[in-house]
C-alpha cells in the first residue's frame, strides 16, 4: 500500500482508505474518492504541485498535499 502521490504517471490503483482532518476527509469522499474506488493517475504536474486523476469516468485534479491522505494499492 502506498499513498496516491507516490504513483507514477499512467498507473492504475484502487483506493483503500482516506485519512486526514474530518472535514478534508469528508470533502475528498464527497468528490467521489471513496475506499474501493478504482482510479488512474493520468498526469503528474509537479511544477504546479497537482495530480490529474481519472475517477468515476471523469477527470479531477488534486494537490500533492491532499493526495498524501489517499492510500491506494496498485492494480
Amino acid at each position, binding site marked *: 500500500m502506498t499513498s496516491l502521490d507516490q504513483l507514477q504517471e499512467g498507473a492504475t490503483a484502487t483506493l483503500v482508505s482516506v485519512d486526514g482532518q474530518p472535514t478534508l476527509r*469528508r*470533502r475528498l*469522499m*464527497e468528490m467521489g474518492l*471513496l475506499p474501493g474506488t478504482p482510479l488512474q493517475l*493520468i498526469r503528474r504536474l509537479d511544477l*504546479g*504541485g497537482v495530480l490529474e486523476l481519472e475517477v468515476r*469516468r471523469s477527470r479531477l*485534479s488534486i494537490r500533492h498535499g491532499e493526495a498524501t491522505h489517499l492510500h491506494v494499492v496498485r492494480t
Partner: protein
Amino acid sequence: MQTATASSTPTIVIAGNPNTGKSTVFNQLTGGRAKIGNYPGVTVERSTGRTMLPGGRLATVNDSPGTYSLASRSSEELLAVESIAGIDPLPRPDLVVVTVDASQLSRNLYLVLQIIELRVPVIVALNMTDTLAESGQRIDVSTLERELGVPVVPMMARRGTGLGDLVRTVDRVLQEPSVALPGWRWTPQPGPLTEDIAAIADTVPETWHHGCDDRRRALALWALLSIDAEHYLAGVPGSLRQRTAERREAAGSAGRDLDREIIEGRYAWIDSCVSRCLREDPRRVSITDRVDRLLLHPALGLFLFLAMMTIIFQALFTGADPLIGLIEEGVARVGHAAGTVLGPGLPGEFVVNGVIEGVGAFVVFLPQILMLFLFIGLMEDSGYMARVAVLMDRVMKSMGLHGRAFVPMLSGFACAVPAILATRTMERRRDRLLTMMALPLMTCSARLPVYGLLIAAMVPPWQEGGFSQGLLMAFMYLFGTAMALIVAWVMSKTMLRGSYIPLVIEMPPYRVPHWPSVWRMVMRRVGDFMKTAGTIILIGSIIIWALLSFPRDSRLEAPFEQQAQAIEQQLEAASGDEDRSALEGQLQQVQRERASAMTRHSYAGRLGHAIEPLIEPLGFDWKIGVGIISAFAAREVFVSTMGVVFGVGEDVDEASEDLRSKMWSDRWPDGRRVFTPLVCLSLMVFFALACQCMSTLAVVRRETGGWGWPAFMFVYMTVLAWTASFLVFQTGRLLGFA
C-alpha cells in the same frame, strides 16, 4: 406542501457545482441584467434578476454559491443550503435549476441528489454535452430523467443551445410542480443511520421544514454531515446542534464511520444510475490528452505558457498604444472643435476640460479592456485557463492567491482597471476580493511617466542619466510586485482568510473557441464598464477639473490679461518673422504663468497648502500636494500638473528639460531644495503604494457592489504609502541624505 400561486411572481434558484456554466445559464435567463446585492446580514454577494416565461409571466431568478455539496463548513457555505431550501429570511424557491457538467456526471449528481431530498421541484440543466461527445461518451437523457425522476434538459449554454427548452420546462414545472418532485432517490436501509436521522429530525425547526417530512429528514441528514466541533455554523439552532453532536459521538464510539456511510450510500446509487445512462465508445485517446501532453509538459509546457503570457503582456503594454493614441487624438480633436464653437469662457472650458476630457478619461481604457477580455475569453473558451490555474497553483497558493489570479495580477502591470474586471474568472468571492485588493500595487503603466520624471529629476539637468537610473526603474517594478504579493499574503492570513478548499481544479477538454460567445462576453464586460464605472470616472474628472479651475478671481487674472494684450498689440505692429516668433513666445509664457497662478490660487492649490503639514514629514511641499490631488484623476496627470504649477505649460512630458530644471531649482521658503534625490525617492514610493486612481476605485465599486471595499482599499493603500514614504524620507534624513 404549498407552492406559490400562479398570480404571484415565482422564484427560481440556480444551483450547481463550480464551473458548470451556472452563471452563463443565469445570464441567459435574465438577459444579463442582474442586480448584485448581498445576502441579508452577510457580505456574500447574490445576483438577482428576472426572466420572462412563455405567456409573458415574470419570474425572479436568484443565483446561489457554486458548491460540490450542500454539507457546509462555513457560514458562507451555509448560504447554499439556505437559499436552495429557502430557510428564513431567504425566499422559498418554487423551482431549483441545477446546472450539471455532463462530462463530470457522478460528481454533479451528488449535489443533485441532496437538492432532490430537500423536496423542492428540480430541473437538471445538463450542460456541456458537446465536451462529453468529444471524449467519446453519450448520456441517455430519457434514462437519466427516469432514474432521477426530474426533467433533464440537455444544453450547450455557452453556445446558447437548449435555452428555449429550459425556459419551456421551467414554465411547465412551475405550473405542475409534481413532475419534478420525485422524493428521496437514495434511501438508507432501516438501521442505525435511519435512527440517527429520525432522532435529529425532531430538532429541525419548523421554520426550516415547513411541515414536510422529506425535507425534515433531508435537513437532519444535512446536519449529520455539516455540524461538528470543528466549525461553528451561525444560525443553526442550539438543540439541533446538540442533538447532532450527540448522535455523531455515539456513532463514533460504536465504531461507525458516519461520513463514509452516507457518502457511500449516495455514490452507490449514483454509480448504478450512471452505469445505466452513460454510453461509452471504446476508449480512444482524446485530442485533449494529446494537446495536454504538449501544453502540460514539464519543460515545453512551461515555455509555451511563458510565451503566451509574454504575448498578452506585450499586447496590453505596448500593443494597445496606437489605439490609445488614436482615442486621445480623437478626444483632443473633439475638444478643440467644441472649444472653437463655444469660444472662450466658462461654459466652453467646462465642456472641453470637464466633460470631454472626462469622457476621454474612461474611453481611453477600452483598448486594453477589449484586448484583455479577448485573451481571457479565448483562454476560457478553449479550456486553457483551467490549465493556467494548475500550472500556477503552487506559486500563487503560497501567497494565498488562487491559481487563476495569475492573469489578472500580470495584467496589473499594464493597468489595474481591466485587471480588476478580469478577477471574475475566479468563482469564489474571497479569491476575487483578495486579488482585487492586492492588484493595484502592481506597477501599472500610468506610474511610468511619474517615475520617469522623478528619476530624471534626481540628477542635475546638465547631467545625463546613467545606468543606475535604469536600475532604479527596475527596482520600482520589483518593489511594487513584492508589496502586492506581501499584501496578498497578509490579507489571506487575516481579514480574507478563506476556508481551505481541497479540490479545486477540473480541467475541461480543449475546444476550438466559439467566436460569437467570446465576443458576446467581451461586449458585455465592456458595456458593464462603460455604464457603471464610466459614470463615476466622468463625475470624478469633472470634480477634479472644478477643483483645479475654481474659484475665479479677475483681480488675479487682470495683470496677465494686460500683459497679454500689450504683447498682442506689439504682435500686430511687428513685421519681421524673428520679432513675431519672439513675441509669440512671450505671449505663451504669459499664458503659462497665468495658468500657474490660477492653479496655485484654485481650491486644489489651497488643498495642497492645507495638506502640507500632513505630507511635510514625507518631504513633500504643497506643490507636490497639488500634484497628488490632481493625480487622483489618473497617475500620469501628476506630470502635466507639475508642468502647469511650474509655469512650463501642461503639454510637458516626463522628458521635458524645462520642467526638470524648474524642479531642480525649486526651493522651500528657507532655501533648501525641494526635489532632492531623497524626496524624489520618497515620492516614487508614495506613488508605488498610494491608491492614486479614481478609475480603480470605480471598478472595484462596480465589482463588489458597494463603496465599502473601495473605501477600504483607498484607506489601506494611503496609510501604507504614507508610512513607507515616511520611513524612506526620515531614515534617509537620519543617514544624512537630505
